[in-house]
């Protein structure tokens, strides 16, 4: 059934609806990964966003039971050139249409996704509404100009209650701002004894779990919308080793007095080169962020830049000068995307071991 995507600037894309046929409003962003649509649509960092995939054929290998990054996908809509109804892969269990119906997420196919992508590249991310054909375009545009997109995405996707993911190794408290399962997987693979806690957990209750380290997860939206977390991180520093990813990285920066701002259209894809300053080594990384840390604002903070994006020089990694804490803007847990930066998790483990030794020494 034909449906239309109406953008705040008045552009209309008419295509075939698939998945659920509910109306939806959101911020339209694009991802350039050629594989990994299942991971992308289930990545909580996309909460509140309509995601268009630049690769035209989506759903080719179907949906399987393993590759979800969260149990409840939270994207607003999926926009593609073609959604495959005949997937082929030994793990495939559903078509993408079936999944979106089941999760009550609308999809739009058959549109010129490259045109949409170029618009976003030129004008920056745009608000849009995915709706039925009988919607009155001017009215929609009118209303779009006034809608304020929600600012509580983290609350929406974070776990309401703590839960353990036991292991025999280091005790890690993983603060869930909209965590991708990949992060948990990487920690468990390293035998970590993980406790996942809600985004608004207090420092005292975190420390009460006697963690060897705290991991700040990725998550959706503007880091400044989760002020309680910023304070929490500030207090944590020094007491226990901290490793942050994506939103966790931005919160760490804010906690240390730096500032963040919104990028024109963000970094979303699986081919982003990131250079490690000390070694000069470049890793190809998976990224998904609309905000970034302002390098100028690092001036008189205890932070220094460890990684930069090769292409636009944006801050990709930070380390605290005095206390054991480092963070990256990109996704070392990959899924989807290259696993080049996977060793950061090992660095986190080593950091925790280091910290323990020193404690013993001081005791």
């Amino acid at each position, binding site marked *: 059934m034909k449906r239309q995507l109406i953008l705040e600037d008045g552009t209309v894309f008419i295509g075939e609806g698939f998945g659920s046929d509910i109306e939806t409003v959101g911020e339209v962003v*694009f991802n*350039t*990964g*050629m*594989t*990994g649509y*299942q*991971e992308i649509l289930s990545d909580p960092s996309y909460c509140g966003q309509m995601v268009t995939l*630049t*690769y*035209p*054929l989506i759903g*080719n*290998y179907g949906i*399987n039971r*393993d*590759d979800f990054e969260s149990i409840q996908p939270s994207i607003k809509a999926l926009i593609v*050139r*073609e959604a*495959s109804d*005949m*997937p*082929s*892969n*030994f*793990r495939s269990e559903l078509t993408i249409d079936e999944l979106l119906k089941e999760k009550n997420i609308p999809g739009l196919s058959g*549109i*010129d*996704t*490259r*045109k949409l*992508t*170029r618009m976003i*590249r030129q004008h920056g991310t745009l608000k849009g509404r995915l709706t039925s054909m009988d919607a009155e375009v001017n009215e929609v545009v009118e209303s779009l100009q006034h809608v304020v997109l929600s600012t509580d995405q983290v609350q929406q996707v974070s776990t309401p209650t703590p839960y353990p993911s036991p292991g025999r190794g280091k005790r890690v408290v993983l603060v869930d701002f909209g965590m991708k399962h990949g992060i948990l997987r990487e920690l468990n693979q390293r035998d970590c004894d993980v406790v996942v806690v809600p985004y608004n957990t207090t420092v005292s209750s975190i420390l009460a779990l006697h963690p060897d380290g705290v991991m700040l997860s990725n998550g959706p939206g503007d880091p400044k919308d989760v002020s309680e977390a910023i304070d929490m991180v500030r207090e944590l520093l020094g007491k226990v080793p901290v490793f942050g990813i994506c939103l966790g990285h931005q919160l760490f920066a804010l906690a240390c007095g730096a500032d963040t701002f919104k990028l024109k259209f963000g970094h979303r*894809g*699986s*081919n*982003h*080169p990131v*250079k490690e300053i000390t070694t*000069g*080594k*470049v890793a*190809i990384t998976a990224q998904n962020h609309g905000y970034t840390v302002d390098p100028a604002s690092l001036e008189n903070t205890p932070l220094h830049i460890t990684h930069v994006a*090769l*292409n636009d020089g944006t801050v990709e990694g930070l380390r605290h000068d005095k206390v054991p804490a480092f963070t990256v803007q990109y996704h070392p847990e*990959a*899924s*989807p*995307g*290259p*696993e080049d930066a996977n060793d950061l998790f090992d660095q986190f483990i080593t950091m925790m071991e280091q910290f323990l030794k020193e404690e013993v020494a001081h005791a």
Partner: protein
Amino acid sequence: MPKRIDIKTILVIGSGPIVIGQAAEFDYAGTQACLALREEGYRVILVNSNPATIMTDTEIADKVYMEPLTVEFISRIIRKERPDALLPTLGGQTALNLAVELSDSGVLDECGVEILGTKLSAIQQAEDRDLFRTLMNELGEPVPDSDIVHNLDEAKAFVEKIGYPVIVRPAFTLGGTGGGICHNDEELKEIVTSGLKYSPVTQCLLEKSIAGFKEIEYEVMRDANDHAIVVCNMENIDPVGIHTGDSIVVAPSQTLSDREYQMLRNCSLKIIRALGIEGGCNVQLALDPHSYQYYIIEVNPRVSRSSALASKATGYPIAKLAAKIAVGLSLDEMLNPVTGTSYACFEPALDYVVTKIPRWPFDKFESAKRNLGTQMKATGEIMAIGRTIEESLLKAVRSLENDVYHLELEDADTFSDEWMERRIRKAGDERLFYIGEALRRGTTVEQIHDWSQIDLFFLHKMENIIRFEEKIASSRDYDVVKKAKRLGFSDKTIAKLWNCSEKEVYEWRCKRDIVPVYKMVDTCAAEFESVTPYFYGTYEDENESIVSDRKKVVVLGSGPIRIGQGVEFDYATVHSVWAIKEAGYEAIIVNNNPETVSTDFSISDKLYFEPLTIEDVMHIIDLEKPEGVVVQFGGQTAINLADKLVERGVTILGTSLEDLDRAENRDHFEQTLQELDIPQPEGKTATSTEQALVIADSIEYPVLVRPSYVLGGRAMEIVYRAEELQQYMTSAVKASPDHPVLIDRYLTGKEIEVDAICDGENVLIPGIMEHIERAGVHSGDSIAVYPPQSLSQQHIDQLALYTERLARGLNIKGLINIQYVISKGEIFVLEVNPRSSRTVPFLSKITGVPMANLATKAILGATLPSLGYGTGLVQPGPGVFVKVPVFSFAKLRRVDITLGPEMKSTGEVMGRDATFEKALYKGLVAAGVSIKNHGSVLLTVADKDKPEAASIAKRFHTLGYKILATEGTASALNELGVPFEVVNKIGQGEKTLLDLIQAGEIQLVINTLTKGKQPARDGFRIRRESVENSIPCLTSLDTAEAMVRVFESMDFEMDPMAGQAKETTQL
């Protein structure tokens, strides 16, 4: 890491002649590499024996050597030029193997030449199947059960262990030469024996067959700082078991989830890191469709056919960056040339689907085994870009120029279901079309999957296409047509379904604005602003191809490389584009061949990577509104579009359509020649067998017969008797009023080839080439010599005169190519091609006349005098130049190698030196003819050739060769008193000449075509046996005579004192 400043001069080795498995992709890679190195300020010395390439142009390297690619000759170049370094990874397998040999020979150490890029040790580790397997085991990367064998017994022993099927892969060979899959003992014997023969190290890998797995390729790059990236991955639609070069391939992979994609990516990068690759590399993997199980098939530690494809598929210039990596630059300090803003250290993101389909030579070699396996048979390939699989696939199909525009075959209705099943089970060149037909007949995709192992994903897409045919047939409604075009349907197909003309469909669409837009290939899926003028057409909303206000000229390329239309035409196309730019126009090229230089987006002002059909070309013209279109450099491909273009009101720049027709249309041509008073072999057109026989009698046998309008002398035969003609008319061609057959008097004599440039008034003749083989051997298959060695001045003047008369008479604006035969002292015209020809690059290079450039300027209105090159016949300078054809018979089982009027060669080399003999020697060596100046020569020739053969034998004998001959031929030798040894014919006694050939007791075979069933068949076996044993087999006495001359020139006389000669030679 900054570039090396300790080296100044770099020697680059090219890949030599075009053969199956090593084609134009290395002209593209080599050219890019040389330019990249010079861009960085290095002095580049290039050696390559292939004159038909851009890379051997003097503008590409500081010094270009066109010498045989052998250790002997390259060592001399090294000693002379003293390069600091050698770059071997851009000249294909040839250059790689040479690098190994050169280093073994010690000359590199002797002259302190460093090997740049990937280290030799790594090359050997990747190429030597045994070393490679060991490395994989160390890395814990899976390879199929396998064993290295050096003889048949070892092979048998291995099969005992793991059972059939097994596959045989010779070490260090091109395109799987000599390899194959064995299901039983006979096949094992045959394939292992040939495999060992072809492997320079008599080593084969026997491997458990994993046929049926998904075949996936990763094109990867690594720099000395250990940055490693994937440029592109590709999925073969044809599963493992069919050579990637013979497989239909799509990019990126379609049926791999991110997990599988990353798993194979990690594996590929791990391997190139372990090997220490510095540059481009190709990793081939096999993935079980039902699990995560994968195997490494092989690694090519160099740029390859696939990397050319990957470059064109993504826009990422692999060869260029590989060359820069070789001199020390690292990926993160080089900008991505496509975006100009982002860096080369990233992984391209595609937002379209690329399909590659190989182009096979079976249309010329009806007798050849058409089925495909682990040994490559394609001569070229085409690529198409679309936004869906369907669009991409159908665009690819119509790019093939095989008279197919859709997933259908002519008279498909006549095929039985059994036949179809067989052709789908056992892959052949036409499998894709059989699948289309099967789906049309309602065969389920599951069934076809079961037969072919082709992934259901692709079969479903094909089904979508077939299913939609009915929809189109049943309605002319806007939405249906729009959908059809989005699915890639050609107007031709829609027209067929509507039964109306293609033109009507085109106009119907345009009226309703159903036209394609053009999107940019930008490596980054539009994430960054890009500057590349590289476009493909698709049926979407937004057009990105901004039309400039400059005056424009469109040049049509020559499409896929095939026998009869090779890289020579790409050479001319590129030079035409350059000339157009020089003349101040915007040069726009349309082509679909991913291997070539012309489709490098940095050549033209705008590149449209599109099929060369009237529909696709017209859409570009509608958008760009050029001054006109240049068709004379794109071979027959472009010429054949001329009339349709004119019909649609497009201006053809250069020679007009009428004049093209006067040269190409048989009757008009005859008229023209009469008007110009230039003799032509007597000939007539027959539309029935009866008529043919009458005509033949009237003009006297032997006659030369062929269907009208053919390229590369297809289905052309010399016929000596009425019975033969009868047989030809009934079996070879179906003569009918609209498919007439041409019957010409066959004139024996010297064949001459001339190319000229004409501005409509003045004619410039860069040179005249004399063929060594007499007329009857296709001009493309004969050895051409410049300047002519045996022509009288009077003949030369006459040829120049005729050529000028023809050029003017046909109002040629641009290039003209003429073939003459001099029979009994009289000159006849055989053929006139009003276009660029196979010999243009050769002549341009040896005479220094930039033919394509001048022709283009003339086309754009300049006069030759104004261009400063004078007119008339250019006087030859010093030196003799020969052009020697190169064949790929080893790759094509069951093809008869006899030279005839039908072209069979795939490539060519050049030999140059002070004398004819020296030049020819080089030419032969460069062509890979193994020349031994002693040993045994076997003669077995047709009766008509015996006397001539005997005199040649005598000369071989004088040089100290042992002469072997079959009875008949022997008697002729007797008469000349040449000592010889009789050998048994096939089926004569136990040890026949075949055994001798196999036993390697014969160094040269001279065999001419004998008519009549039995001898014909024997002759065929003798010739094939020679090929399989890589023993030179000459089928023309002219070639033999020339070769003997070469030997004589190299040899000192060995005669006893006067008077004794006879007796002693008798000993």
